[in-house]
């Protein structure tokens, strides 16, 4: 909303030394967010009134004239102009060198310079309305027409901003910050806040006495729950004319387009008090009766542009005896327009229920200045303010007009809320004692009525805050706190009571795993969206039966929510392969599957939601990256302090290679898997010339240790004997067979290397292992060592068919 400080100052006398910036800052801290402070005179600098003293022919151009013009300086200036409506003694608008104008009303503003036009000097320009932001004030009939200021009280040299009342400051207020304050959708509401902030009196709005004995205007409200009040006034002597400059200026500053005097009056009143009004040409109201009713199913409303809109029976319409004339509180139809032959109007000042307007407005996806205000919830008493101000303005602008009929159909009055607030409550919650006088001043200037008895305030909330805004004592406390300014309260330290040590093992484990992966294993953590491109779900062959979908997804292909982190990771891999050919990524996020999960209350059945971890290693050598990923998982328990996980081949994940996959198990239950991305998945996702090892684990199944658990082992008193051993075995022999067969014979056994190649016979492989041995009590002699090695070899030969490899 745009707020004119000039108009504000009509209703509240602000302290003299206050800058506009300070007003904006104070409003921002205490009431609403001011996003911008705009000087509306700025764009009119160096644009002044000129008087054409003499018009001469241009020697070199038929269409141009030389105008000797008085612009308030000692000597008149010569300006070349092509306007078609030039005459001597005409008052015109002159842009002096230095002013910014919009050439022919199009494009960015351009700086005016002293120049020559077809050989004749020209000191600036005589301007058309569209060139100098005056369309709202002097609409041109033809493109070549310059602004004629005939009839306007002004003198050569006057700045045009002063002439058209645009010398003002406009505060641009963020509409979002106004959404819960229906009282602030007009200048008077903002003025009231300022009167409370600066403790200065608020001036009263004008009163207009209507003759109560006038004949009644016939109004019938068929839906009293949707229309709380309807005042209809028939006024004679209204015709189409322009509104005065000051009114156009206010509308222009607040972003409204001036149309004609009567429409402008209704808009002006809405800008001042926040009450929408509507004027119908009285001859358009068939039967001289207004009916407020629900539309019929499929009834149509004819709009000004001859388009029709389809209505439903939920929509509230303003009708005459035959047809709908307007969509209540939202917009008028063709029948409400004021035309050149208008001689009188029916003025509507009404109150509609917020939810009605919101519902219909939503269906037409249309917000108007009127609907924005109604849907916030306006008090019914505001009708009086709007009506009085409108009638006063009509009398002023149409002095010969006459009210001939009037009626006020008042179905429901906004009840003022009554709240009791104890002094103790205020002191405690505010954290300091505010004097009764100060509380009285703040609340009274905001429109509250209050009395104090025995430590308790009886508070009556003003009607304009009683439509849902102020309901409980906390709301009143909030009003006091914000007007004093939140910053005026000393920050009070919070005391800490140490009751128990905060230690949440599951939270800690999550962090340990992420830090392990990123800082120890060299993975980068990624974030992806919960909605997944369907393409990657299909490529990864993730079962979609249990997946959830969004009702209104960001894009049609993004409807599915993740039931696995694999597809999102796959997409991330594809994206990054454009720039890197080796990398490691991981992600920890929730995945969702249809199911029955009730975390908080039995009535709420949520889908199963579990925290998953996925990771990938991208690299050329498939076997290397597989075993690197395997190592990452094997060491996770030791480094992250959780119960050990096992890796065994049980069940192939759909995305994994036919051979290279393992399942992650804990207590014999599968909780995840590890594998190379299958040939088919890589093919379909166009991953070429590289390989991908991936893993995915259900993190919720991991069991954190309460503390670090491993026991200290005494350092051996005797040296360990370490021996490397290379054996040839059949290529089908697995490491685990070798390990199991000799485990009991040695202290430690360690895999060093597996080799197939040149010196190794077909169908065989060479395994190198490291063995550590120790004797109880004494150092091993070389004889003992040889004996031990021989027995190890014998066992290996017997169980695994191993032969010692000759070096």
């Amino acid at each position, binding site marked *: 909303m745009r707020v004119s400080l000039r108009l504000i100052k009509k209703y509240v006398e602000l302290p003299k030394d206050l800058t506009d910036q300070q007003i904006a800052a104070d409003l*921002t*801290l205490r009431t609403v*967010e001011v*996003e911008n402070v705009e000087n509306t005179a700025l764009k009119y600098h160096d644009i002044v009134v000129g008087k054409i003293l003499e018009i001469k022919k241009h020697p070199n151009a038929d269409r141009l004239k030389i105008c000797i013009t008085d612009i308030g300086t000692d000597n008149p200036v010569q300006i070349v102009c092509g306007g078609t409506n030039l005459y001597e003694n005409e008052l015109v608008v002159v842009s002096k060198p230095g002013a910014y104008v919009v050439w022919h009303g199009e494009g960015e503003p351009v700086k005016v310079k002293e120049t020559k036009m077809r050989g004749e000097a020209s000191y600036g320009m005589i301007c058309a309305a569209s060139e100098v932001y005056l369309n709202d004030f002097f609409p041109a009939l033809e493109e070549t027409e310059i602004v004629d200021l005939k009839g306007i009280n002004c003198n050569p040299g006057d700045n045009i901003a002063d002439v058209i009342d645009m010398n003002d400051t406009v505060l641009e207020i963020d509409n979002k*910050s106004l*959404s*819960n*304050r229906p009282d602030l959708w007009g200048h008077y509401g903002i003025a009231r806040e300022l009167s409370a902030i600066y403790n200065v009196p608020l001036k009263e709005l004008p009163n207009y006495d209507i003759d109560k004995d006038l004949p009644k205007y016939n109004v019938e409200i068929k839906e009293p729950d949707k229309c709380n009040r309807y005042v209809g006034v028939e006024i004679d002597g209204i015709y189409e004319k322009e509104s005065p400059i000051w009114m156009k200026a206010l509308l222009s500053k607040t972003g409204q387009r001036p149309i004609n005097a009567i429409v402008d009056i209704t808009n002006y009143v809405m800008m001042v008090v926040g009450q929408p009004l509507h004027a119908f040409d009285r001859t358009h109201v068939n039967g001289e009766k207004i009916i407020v009713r629900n539309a019929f199913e499929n009834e149509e409303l004819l709009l000004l542009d001859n388009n029709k809109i389809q209505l439903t029976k939920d929509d509230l319409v303003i009708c005459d005896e035959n047809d709908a004339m307007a969509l209540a509180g939202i917009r008028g139809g063709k029948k409400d327009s004021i035309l050149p032959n208008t001689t009188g109007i029916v003025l509507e000042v009404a109150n509609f229920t917020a*939810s009605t307007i*919101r519902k219909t407005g939503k269906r037409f996806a249309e917000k108007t200045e009127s609907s924005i205000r109604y849907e916030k919830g306006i008090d019914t008493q505001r009708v009086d303010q709007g009506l009085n101000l409108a009638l006063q303005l009509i009398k002023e602008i149409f002095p010969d007009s006459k009210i001939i009929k009037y009626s006020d159909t008042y179905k429901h009055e906004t009840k003022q809320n009554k709240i009791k607030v104890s002094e103790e409550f205020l002191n405690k*919650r*505010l*954290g*300091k004692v505010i004097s009764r006088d100060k509380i009285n001043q703040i609340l009274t200037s905001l429109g509250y009525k209050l009395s104090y008895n025995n430590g308790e305030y009886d508070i009556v909330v003003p009607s304009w805050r009683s439509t849902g805004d102020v309901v*409980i004592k*906390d709301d009143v406390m909030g*009003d006091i*706190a914000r007007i004093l300014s*939140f*910053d005026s*309260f*000393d*920050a*009070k*330290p*919070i005391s800490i009571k*140490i009751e128990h040590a*905060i230690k949440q093992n599951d*939270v800690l484990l999550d*962090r340990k795993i*992420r830090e392990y*992966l*990123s*800082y120890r*294993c*060299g993975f*980068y*953590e990624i*974030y*992806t*969206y*919960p909605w997944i491109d369907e393409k990657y779900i299909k490529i990864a062959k993730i079962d979609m039966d249990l997946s*959830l*979908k*969004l009702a*209104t997804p960001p894009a049609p292909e993004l409807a599915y*929510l993740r039931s696995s982190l694999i597809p999102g990771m796959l997409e*991330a891999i594809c994206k*990054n392969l454009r720039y890197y050919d080796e990398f*490691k*990524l991981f992600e920890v996020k*929730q995945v*969702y599957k249809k199911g029955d999960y009730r*975390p*908080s*209350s039995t*009535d*709420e*059945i*949520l889908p199963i939601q579990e925290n998953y971890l996925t990771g990938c290693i991208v690299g050329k050598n498939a076997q290397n990256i597989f075993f690197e990923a395997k190592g990452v998982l094997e060491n996770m328990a030791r480094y992250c302090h959780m119960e050990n996980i096992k890796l065994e081949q049980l069940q192939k994940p759909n995305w994994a290679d036919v051979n290279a996959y393992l399942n992650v198990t804990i207590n014999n239950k599968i909780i995840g898997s590890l594998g190379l991305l299958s040939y088919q998945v890589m093919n379909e996702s166009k991953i070429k010339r590289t390989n991908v090892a991936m893993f995915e684990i259900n993190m919720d199944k991991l069991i954190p240790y309460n503390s670090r658990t491993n026991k200290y082992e005494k350092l051996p008193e005797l040296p360990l004997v370490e021996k490397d051993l290379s054996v040839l075995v059949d290529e089908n022999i697995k490491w685990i067979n070798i390990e199991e067969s000799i485990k009991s014979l040695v202290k430690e056994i360690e895999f060093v290397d597996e080799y197939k190649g040149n010196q190794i016979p077909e169908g065989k492989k060479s395994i190198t292992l490291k063995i550590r041995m120790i004797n109880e009590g004494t150092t091993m002699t070389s004889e003992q060592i040889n004996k031990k090695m021989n027995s190890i070899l014998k066992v290996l030969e017997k169980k695994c068919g191993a032969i010692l490899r000759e070096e």
Partner: protein
Amino acid sequence: MKEKLEDIKIKGLKKIENIKNISELEDVRKELTGKKSELSQVLKSMSSLSNEDKKSIGMFTTEIKNLFIDKLHGKEEEIISSMSVLDGPIDLTLPGHKVNEGALHPITQMKYDLNDAFLSLGFDLYSEDDISSEKYAFDNLNFAKDHPARESMDTYWIEGTEAKSGAERLCLRPHLTGGSVRYLMRHGAPARFVYPGGAYRNETTDARHERAFVQYEALIVDKDISFSSGMVMIQTILEKVFGRKINTRMREGFFPFTEPGYEIDMECLVCGGKGCKVCNHNGWIEVMPGGVIHPNVLKSAGLNPEEWTGFYINIGLDRLVMMRYGVDDVRLFHSADLRFLKQFK
């Protein structure tokens, strides 16, 4: 004889002087002090001399030998101390070997910084699930029945539930605040806890707007605390994150689940509060909404608002991380783009 010894001494010292490496040193040592050295020869040939001469020549020979030993020792020290473990020349300008790369997401890093700060203030860490219901995301939090945030233009409803209401209408949570009631229902009051996480809103995205964003919310519920206590907490947190005191201001704000609500702005770190593009030329950046917990929210959590009160703060982590590093496009956070992520080690 004496002249001969003088000659041996001078030549010997010269040899020692010219030694270049350890193997030469060993050769010279043998030559000058070994059994077959000239000095040994001299001692052997001394039998023909008088006792007196024997004595003086003997002493002189020993003197020279000791001198040689001494000098050789010095030379050995000199050579060893200048010896390199390398065989040849080395190019010291070659880059060092890479350390293990990898990093947490910059938002995770910020989250952990905040976790550490809040844990030191005695807060619990809590997290609600991503998918919630209208009851917990809106009803419990005092959102009006026809609040626009409940519409599908704003909230991502789950297909098949969008036409239902309350506990049966499911959504990707549009904010974290619903989790506060879940926690209070389970643990009661007094309570102080933080609950970071992702939130999702149906929005048009651009450099400043995202559909998925990460928030960090904290709530204290206790007796007899005033809303201004929130200010201390906020200042502590910002100081922790940015490593110095950050100017803040608290201004009017409105949220259904607070009364009163406030917005907390911090000075713009890009321009130092002077005004720039990032802060829309007013020197302040909106970082945290907050406010006193609304009595109706306490009631939904089964707490008596006459007895308990408390306050929220909610930190937009995306915005804070953008401030910390000067990131100019919020969409990068969910891009999974390593060119971006590699910058935050």
